[in-house]
Structures are given as structure tokens and as C-alpha cells.
């Protein structure tokens, strides 16, 4: 009993775009172009992905899943990389990190029989894991950069006392991990109370019984939770060393950092 939104009904979605458009016009926010463009772009992207998914779901799982998961990881890597391009090897760390995270989560799903190895199950679930991991990695990179800048005095003090980079960075690593995990801990606390998670909403609209839907939601929420933790940890532990040179000295400028990329 899957409900369907008819194409005529879809046309009326224009009304939903008119609201922000009117606001922008009335208050001269100068965002009209952006609003129109992002609405059109979003619509095209979603339709495209709809057709692509239809095609992928019909493919053999051993082709469709690696193909789509690979593309998702690649795109996600570029996206997260933007938050820390000046850090040497950031792309490789992010890419391999996402691969490890997705690989281990997928392995657990399959081993414990939570998800079937079918494109229609693995791809949407993986998308959520990879997307959230991407955000967590980007946040961890940004946070790490700002912590290193803010705490350069303390780090100098620690180094001056004889600390190795790893020892000196301890404080920052802790703070970064903490900051990356907090939003997830918070959202787990209010899950289902404040808003029904998107996936659960989708399943219920699709006709799945609520209790069935929450089982899936639990699987995905906890998978995301552990992937996000793992992602933040991988990025932080792999990247802190690039804030120092080989003589246990703090690197003081972005140029110096970039010039070391070829080490």
C-alpha cells in the first residue's frame, strides 16, 4: 500500500518555493537567484538519483554495491577534504578512513544479519553511514585546526617541557573527539521525541509497521553513532602529527604546512 505523490501534486511544490522567494524579495535578502537555482538543482539531482538507483537496484549486488558505495566514498572524501586541504595527505587519510568505517559497518550488518546484501538495502543504509562520517571527519579537521591555533601557547609550553608531539597533542585530541561525539550523543537522547528520524518517517510512509521501522532506525542510528566515533578518531589520530615537523617543533603557518606535503 505504498502511497504515491502524483506528478500534478509535485507541481504544486512550487508553492513551497514561493514562500522563501517572497521573503527574499520582500526583505531584499538578495537570495532569490540562489533559492531558485538550489530548488531546481535539488529537484534534478533527486530525479537523477532516483533513476540511477532504479538501475543500480536491478544490477547484480556484487557490481551495484561496490560501484555505488565507491562513488559515495569518493564524493564524500572530496567534500570532507575541503575542510583541511592544507594538511598533507588529508585526502588519503579521509578516503581510507571512510573505506575502513564503511567496510567494518557493512561487515557487522551482514555478519549479524541485520541487512541483506541487496543494493536496495545496502546502498541507502551505507549512504547514511558515509554521509554522517563525512560530516564528522570534516568537523574533526576543522576543530583540530582551530584547537591547534588556539592552544599554540600551551603546546609550546608542553614541547618546552620535553613532551613528544603525541604527548603534547593529547589535550587537543581529547577535545576534538569530545566535540565530534557530542552532537550524536545529544541527538540519540532526543531521538523519536523531537522529530522522527528521516528513515523511519520514510518507512512508515512506505507502509511499514512502526515497530518494524524503529528496528531499522535503531540499526542505522547506532551504526551511525559508531561510524562517527570511528571517523573522528581516525582523522584525529592520523592527522595530529602534521602539525609538527620532524624536530618536534610546532608548524607555525599554513604555507609551512603546505610546503611539507611532499615529505
Amino acid at each position: 500500500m505504498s502511497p504515491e505523490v502524483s506528478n500534478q501534486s509535485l507541481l504544486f511544490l512550487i508553492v513551497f518555493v514561493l514562500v522563501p522567494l517572497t521573503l527574499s524579495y520582500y526583505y531584499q535578502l538578495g537570495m532569490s537567484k540562489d533559492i531558485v537555482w538550489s530548488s531546481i538543482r535539488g529537484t534534478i539531482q533527486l530525479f537523477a538519483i532516483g533513476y540511477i538507483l532504479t538501475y543500480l537496484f536491478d544490477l547484480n549486488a556484487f557490481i551495484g554495491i561496490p560501484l555505488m558505495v565507491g562513488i559515495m566514498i569518493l564524493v564524500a572524501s572530496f567534500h570532507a577534504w575541503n575542510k583541511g586541504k592544507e594538511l598533507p595527505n588529508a585526502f588519503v587519510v579521509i578516503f581510507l578512513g571512510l573505506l575502513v568505517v564503511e567496510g567494518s559497518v557493512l561487515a557487522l550488518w551482514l555478519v549479524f544479519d541485520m541487512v541483506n546484501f541487496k543494493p536496495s538495502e545496502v546502498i541507502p543504509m551505507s549512504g547514511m553511514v558515509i554521509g554522517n562520517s563525512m560530516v564528522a571527519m570534516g568537523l574533526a579537521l576543522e576543530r583540530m585546526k582551530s584547537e591547534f591555533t588556539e592552544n599554540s601557547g600551551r603546546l609550546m609550553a608542553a614541547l618546552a617541557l620535553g613532551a613528544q608531539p603525541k604527548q603534547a597533542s593529547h589535550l587537543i585530541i581529547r577535545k576534538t573527539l569530545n566535540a565530534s561525539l557530542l552532537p550524536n550523543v545529544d541527538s540519540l537522547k532526543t531521538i523519536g521525541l523531537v522529530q522522527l528520524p528521516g528513515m523511519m518517517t520514510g518507512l512508515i510512509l512506505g507502509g511499514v509497521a512502526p515497530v518494524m521501522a524503529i528496528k531499522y532506525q535503531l540499526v542505522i542510528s547506532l551504526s551511525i553513532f559508531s561510524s562517527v566515533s570511528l571517523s573522528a578518531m581516525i582523522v584525529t589520530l592520523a592527522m595530529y602529527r602534521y602539525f609538527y615537523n620532524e624536530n618536534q617543533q610546532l608548524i607555525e603557518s599554513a604555507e609551512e604546512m603546505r610546503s611539507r606535503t611532499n615529505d
Partner: protein
Amino acid sequence: MENYLFDFHGVSKDILNDLNFTIKKNEKIILFGPSGAGKSSALFLFNRLRDPDSGKIYYKGEPIQSCEISQLRKNIGLVLQAPNLFPGTVLDNLKYGPSLFDEWEDSRAEELMDLIQLPENYLHRDVDQLSGGEQQRVSLGRTLANKPEVLLLDEPTSALDVRTSEEIEGVLEKLIEVHQLTMVMVTHNLRQAKRLGERGIFMKEGKIVEDGNISRLLMEPESKALQEFLQD
């Protein structure tokens, strides 16, 4: 040559031009000059927080590049301008350095608090609750906990009011007297320079302009640069 602790010849692009000097064991040196002269940069070369682009620095006759870095930094203590304490208690800060080398013993806390002249019941206070002067003492104590042979001080009282900085001077004065430390101190405070220093090195634009007895430098400056500096 035994008593030359440092033999210093360092050049750092655009910052330090040509620094050539030796430091003997137990010398009390005041490094002074206008801001931007390269005093901090010079200080950071001693414990390798930075490296010169060219030139050589010898510590006890050995190039510092061949000393193990952590050990070198432990022996050459540095106190920065701002306290930069680690979050936690006074005790956490005091034991940080020695713990890195597995050398901390709880019995040392008392002795260190005595050195920096803070009451012992401060040990378990959070460092956020301390005044600026108290924080700077903890910062000094944290460096002393490593039992350094050389003490580098980068304007340790510049952020403090007159009374508090005099108290810190008192702490330093006693420390220098009791423990035979070699000291290199950067300061803008000439009264403090005379009280704590013996030898003065006046720097300007990355170069050493005058080097000699601190009282002589302050009373009878030879160079025009130093004369001008003292007039301001």
C-alpha cells in the same frame, strides 16, 4: 672550554642576522632590546623550539642538533611570557614535565611550592582560579620541576602589575642564589635587569649591538642604538 655551556652562532632568515656569543655556566644574562629585535626568536633556538636556517649552536661542546630533543628541552627550561597552564590543578601542572620522563614523586610537590612561594593548600586548586601572578609562578614551578640546568625566561613579568612582578623577581632572585642556574632572561624592565642580571646583551634588528656587564651597559651605553633605546 669546559665552562662554556653554549657556543652560539645562529642565523634565521629575516629575523636573526648574525648572533655570535658564548654562555658560561652560571652566567645570568639579560637579553634586551626593542620589540621585534628577535629576542624571543633567539631564545627559542636554545631549546630547539625553532631552528636557525644556518649556523651552529653547541651545548656543552656538542651540536644541539645531535642532542636528543626531549632531553635537551628538559635540561634547558623555558618560561614563556604568558603562563599557558594546562587545564587542571596546580599539581597537574607541576608534575607534567617529570611525568613525561617517569620521574615524578609526590614528595617533590612541597619543595616546588616552596620554591615558587605558594602555600601548599594551593596544590589542588584549579589553575583557572588563580590570579595572573600565581599562574606565572605555577608556570615557573612547572619548568623548575624538570630540574633544568639552564633557565630561559621570555618576559615572564611583562603582563603583571609592578607589585606582582616584584614578587616574582624575589622568587627568581632566591632561586638563582640557591640553585646554581644559568639564566637567560628577556625583559623590558631595566630595574629588573639590574637586579637579576650580570651580563647584558642588547639586540636590535636581529643583531647583537652591545654585550657586557649589565650595569655598565645601562650606565654608559657605547652605541647610539642603545643610547636611544635607554632614552625612551
